[in-house]
């Protein structure tokens, strides 16, 4: 990488952080907030990605193996991806959310693997190992230079990430997030205060799935190609590791964890020297990811930024209490 453009390299990393960050937000809603151990992250992601591609790809030619390509505008794809991912989440969640703990984990993992087998083997759907190439990118026509477009795409991804972050944070501190946290903390007590636990869990699960659909649409637009091998379980584990090192239950933590993990991984690409070393470096990325996870859990099990708690600082009516004004801190650990 002699004539590497540092700016482009960094913007690429930031884009990947934004995309994986969206997945980490989604998982934080499901696991960090609602306590659902979902090991099927890559499944909803893949469904969203294929929904995006199949709605926007051109109709199949005689040479291609796929049979669905609706050729619709890209914005339709950006709606289809979260809708399809949410729908698939619903189909998986309806039976699986009756299971608890590790059984839910195994069921979701299995669902994602079955899906991967389908995508790998059904050429009519995914165009086989060739996949789809040269995908259209949003607003690409408005930019003459590919380099400038890459900066634009980074900004677009960050904007989507930011909006989703705002939405999820707002839900987190309101009645919806509060009820989900209560279910995570104690299912029996949540039932005793009249919470329809199953329904709330399904809501969280479907919303989380839909959020990961946005990541999927951005991801395939960024890569401009889609092949089934992009959707291996390593995606799931990467998101989990990012969330655990960042801090479960904390949306900012989820993003910090993603940034740390993706940067650590991408920097190893930066040092690529010879072909011999390349494979060792690729292997060392796996080792680094594993070690970071082991070390964080050992020494900082609640992550870099632990969960925060809601602090009620509004005034108390005087008639009810002679209390001193509470300190304006919003955060306790």
């Amino acid at each position: 990488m002699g004539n590497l453009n540092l700016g482009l390299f960094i913007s690429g990393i930031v884009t990947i952080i934004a995309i994986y960050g969206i997945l980490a937000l989604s998982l934080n809603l499901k696991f960090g907030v609602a306590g659902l151990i979902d090991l099927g992250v890559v499944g909803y992601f893949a469904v969203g990605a294929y929904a995006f591609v199949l709605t926007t790809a051109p109709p199949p030619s005689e040479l291609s193996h796929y049979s669905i390509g609706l050729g619709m505008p890209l914005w339709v794809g950006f709606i289809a991806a979260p809708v399809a991912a949410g729908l698939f989440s619903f189909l998986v969640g309806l039976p699986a959310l009756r299971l608890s703990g590790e059984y839910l984990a195994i069921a979701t993992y299995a669902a994602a693997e079955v899906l991967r087998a389908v995508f790998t083997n059904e050429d009519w759907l995914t165009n086989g190992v060739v996949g789809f190439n040269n995908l259209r990118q949003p607003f690409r026509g408005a930019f003459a230079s590919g380099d400038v477009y890459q900066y634009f795409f980074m900004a677009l991804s960050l904007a989507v990430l930011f909006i989703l972050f705002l939405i999820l944070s707002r839900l987190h501190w309101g009645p919806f997030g509060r009820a989900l946290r209560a279910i995570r903390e104690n299912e029996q007590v949540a039932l005793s205060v009249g919470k329809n636990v199953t329904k709330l869990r399904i809501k969280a699960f479907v919303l989380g799935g839909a959020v990961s659909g946005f990541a999927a649409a951005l991801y395939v637009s960024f890569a401009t190609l889609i092949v089934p091998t992009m959707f291996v379980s390593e995606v799931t584990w990467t998101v989990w590791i990012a969330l655990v090192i960042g801090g479960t239950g904390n949306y900012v933590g989820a993003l910090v964890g993603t940034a740390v993990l993706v940067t650590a991984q991408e920097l190893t690409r930066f040092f690529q020297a010879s072909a011999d070393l390349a494979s060792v470096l690729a292997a060392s990325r796996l080792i680094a990811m594993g070690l970071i996870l082991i070390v964080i859990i050992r020494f900082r099990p609640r992550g870099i930024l632990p969960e925060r708690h809601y602090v009620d600082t509004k005034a108390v009516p005087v008639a009810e209490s002679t209390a001193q004004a509470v300190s304006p801190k919003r955060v306790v650990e």
Partner: protein
Amino acid sequence: MGEGVPRVQYLQYVVFGLVTGTILLLGTVGFSMIRRVDNFLNIAHGQMVALGAYLGYLFYAMIGLPLVVASVLAIASTAVLGWASHRIVFNPIRGHGPLYLLFTSVGLAYVIHGSLEAIFGTRPKAFILPEPRFFSIAGEPLVSTVEIFIIVVAIVSAVALHLFLTRTRAGMAVRAMSSEYDLARVRGINTSRVAALVWILASGLAGLAGILMGIQGTVYTDMGWAIILVILSAAVLGGLGSIYGVMVGAMLIGLSMDLSVIWLPPAYRSAVAFMVIMLVLVVRPQGIFGGVSRG
């Protein structure tokens, strides 16, 4: 889809299924024992299978030791490494709860996977064995010496494990501990020593499973991830913690995977295991042989 396929070929699929099932059995029993004793899903267990396969390859194909010696060495080293992972990685965070143990095992799985890739490279390896002889029925090869060997080794190991668990003091301590951890401690069983024994046994069996996989097919760096998924399926089918249940579960998963080839494209072979598992979880979450172990 079965038209045109000779009847014998069905029998052949049964043989394949038995081979898959018996290898899987060795991997799953250890996984299930660890689940019982330390109460978490050890994702790194699949990498112990891969480790056994690669160490077997190292001692047999690279160094050139006789197969039996190479296997014994590989199994022993895998067992020691499994025990070390228990001592160094898992024991210090026991108090963090099963979920953190599971994630740590994922971390360890990546460390082992990456190490194997760094040392051996990503290209698949094969044990080079003498050409096997085939036993045929009606002119169709039915079962090879290698397949018979694998099945016999696996069954002998399973029986040996059974005798160990039921006839020896140490084995009974393992069983006591894996059914009632607290009770075992109260009754004066040295739980940390028994746990160590379980990890050595489980990892050794995983190593053996890896070697058999190597003998049967190829050795590749992703095999740890591939096998852990099937192990999870077999374990759930048998009722996660029950040692004998998962033996049956492993055989059923192995047979259903290889028999599915009769009706489904072969590429769906491993997906069949996961479909079985989703069905089982939805219909009967405690497994077909397990007691109530939900939650």
